């Protein structure tokens, strides 16, 4: 029998972690059905009856706002014969949820409202007052600053405990808004990767890949940026989002340090110098200071983060207000949902600046992720080769800074965040095997 505990060592990982369908089934059971999974932002469902559908460990779920304005997460199926209830990716159910098969009707808070011609249940075990015949609620639902998560596990750490110090990613995003909260830009891009879900999460924190994988885009963008500069005397800020890939490896090594937590979460330091002194930025800084005061404004804007990974479900780019949710489909197929948020109370120009990143880097016509997805797919196909058995995670192993159970890198290129994700992976899998 497969012993998954033996597939991960502190400095290397077995190829079967990425290629074995049996490992993937265990991951769904022991990781995704146990942890918090990102449902969506409350502003995705602003009105009663609004819903958004998603999966947890292949199970169809729906986030639904009820008549009193409360957001709930339910298993998205009728308790009668099992038909899916909310069938669009997102939509509005109306004043109640009605099943398309036998017309059972549910309140927006999931309670059974009516069964057509409901004679015939006397003396049976079905009772309309019984919650078991309403829409089944996800065992746990919690939100943090408007971001909703659900868990299929009845017990476990609260959302805030699970986020831990890495909650700084959501804080950084929301604190940057003069009104202290964000709202979703109502568009979700969905991109399928023919590769294991772990490759996506590892890549976000793999500091030694950008200058290799994105060289073509960095070079092309820098060339055109230089031409624009010669022509106009200016360098459009959005070109920098691409041309930064031409930086020498030593600069990445120095700038991009990570802090890694035992949950598998990691915080990656920022590098894009997103605090310029142009008139739009200064107007924004004034708007923020007017709301929170000068001292707090400085605290907020001195936070310098590129990415925060909430293992194993979501990647947040707080200074650009973007979020990617990871939805594993099979051992070699993963869907990502890509969202952009607006800082409430910030000038339009600040939103438009971050929008460039959504358009150039995170849209389905991305000039950046095109080469990431290509590389992950190359890995997925080539790992069928049984030799060598192990993948290397050795870079800077043993030289990171260890403070209790937190690991900080000394060198940005350290593979610490990858080792850290497998530290969490191993813990989830061991706990699942024991239970």
């Amino acid at each position, binding site marked *: 029998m497969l012993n998954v505990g033996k597939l991960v060592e502190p400095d290397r990982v077995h190829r079967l972690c990425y290629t074995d369908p049996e490992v993937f089934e265990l991951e769904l059971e022991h990781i995704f059905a146990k942890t918090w999974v990102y449902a969506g932002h409350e502003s995705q469902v602003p009105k009663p009856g609004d819903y958004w559908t998603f999966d947890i460990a292949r199970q169809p779920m729906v986030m639904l706002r009820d008549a009193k304005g409360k957001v709930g997460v339910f298993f998205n199926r009728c308790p009668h014969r099992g038909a899916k209830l909310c069938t669009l990716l997102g939509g509005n159910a109306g004043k109640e949820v009605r099943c398309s098969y036998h017309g059972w009707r549910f309140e927006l808070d999931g309670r059974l409202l009516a069964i057509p011609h409901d004679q015939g249940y006397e003396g049976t075990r079905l009772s309309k007052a019984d919650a078991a015949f309403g829409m089944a609620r996800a065992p746990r639902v919690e939100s943090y600053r408007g971001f909703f998560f659900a868990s299929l596990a009845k017990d476990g750490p609260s959302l805030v405990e699970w986020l831990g110090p890495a909650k700084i990613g959501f804080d950084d995003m929301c604190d940057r808004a003069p009104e202290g909260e964000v709202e979703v830009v109502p*568009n979700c891009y969905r*991109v399928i*990767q023919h590769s294991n879900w772990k490759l996506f999460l590892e890549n976000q924190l793999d500091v030694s890949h950008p200058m290799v994988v994105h060289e*073509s885009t960095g070079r*092309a963008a820098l060339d*055109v940026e230089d031409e624009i500069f010669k022509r106009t005397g200016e360098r459009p800020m959005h070109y920098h989002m691409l041309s930064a890939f031409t930086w020498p490896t030593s600069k990445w090594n120095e700038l991009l340090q990570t802090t890694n937590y035992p949950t598998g979460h990691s915080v990656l330091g920022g590098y894009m110098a997103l605090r310029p002194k142009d008139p739009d930025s200064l107007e924004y800084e004034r708007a923020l200071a007017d709301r929170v005061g000068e001292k707090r404004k400085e605290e907020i804007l001195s936070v310098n983060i590129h990415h925060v990974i909430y293992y194993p479900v979501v990647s947040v780019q707080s200074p650009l207000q973007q979020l990617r949710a990871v939805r594993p489909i099979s051992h070699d197929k993963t869907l990502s949902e890509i969202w952009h948020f607006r800082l409430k109370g910030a000038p339009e120009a600040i939103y438009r600046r971050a929008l460039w990143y959504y358009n150039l880097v995170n*849209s389905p016509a991305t000039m950046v992720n*095109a*080469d990431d997805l290509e590389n992950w797919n190359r890995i997925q196909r080539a790992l069928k080769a049984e030799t060598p058995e192990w993948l290397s995670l050795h870079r800077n192993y043993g030289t990171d800074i260890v403070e209790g159970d937190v690991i900080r890198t000394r060198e940005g290129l350290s593979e610490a965040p990858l080792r850290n994700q497998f530290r969490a992976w191993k813990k989830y899998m061991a706990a699942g095997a024991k239970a």
Partner: protein
Amino acid sequence: MSLEREVEALLYQQSELLDSKAWEEYIALFAEDGLYWMPPAPHYTTWEGQPAIFIEDRDLMTVRARRVGHSRAWSQQAEWSTNHLVSNIVIERSDDADIHVRSRFHMMELRRDAMRHFGGTYRHHLRRTPAGLRIKLQRVDLFNAQAPYDYVLQVWV
């Protein structure tokens, strides 16, 4: 040549240039201030302050063309080619300087061993210049723009 024939010739030329990967010549079909725009869904009326799958002027188009032409553009090392058809061409309105054209397209794409299909509507705002018709705006509405993307779009559709 009739206006209809002239417009058709431009649309056919555009397909040929895309399928033969003649990126610079494709970009040269655009006016100096021309834009290529692919909105995320048909209900979008502007790209200003809105998400866009593509919103590229000639400079950004040049970045894209040079990227895919780079020897280490990894995604381009897989066999990759496209086949465009353009049809249902309607001139919606025109005067001496500006011509608005609607058409339907179908693009098949081969990447490695996998085939994908993209279809939808082109809306060209063309401008008459001394050098011939040039594209002021090419709006591309994929009918499957909101469906999941199996991989990404590397170049203009």
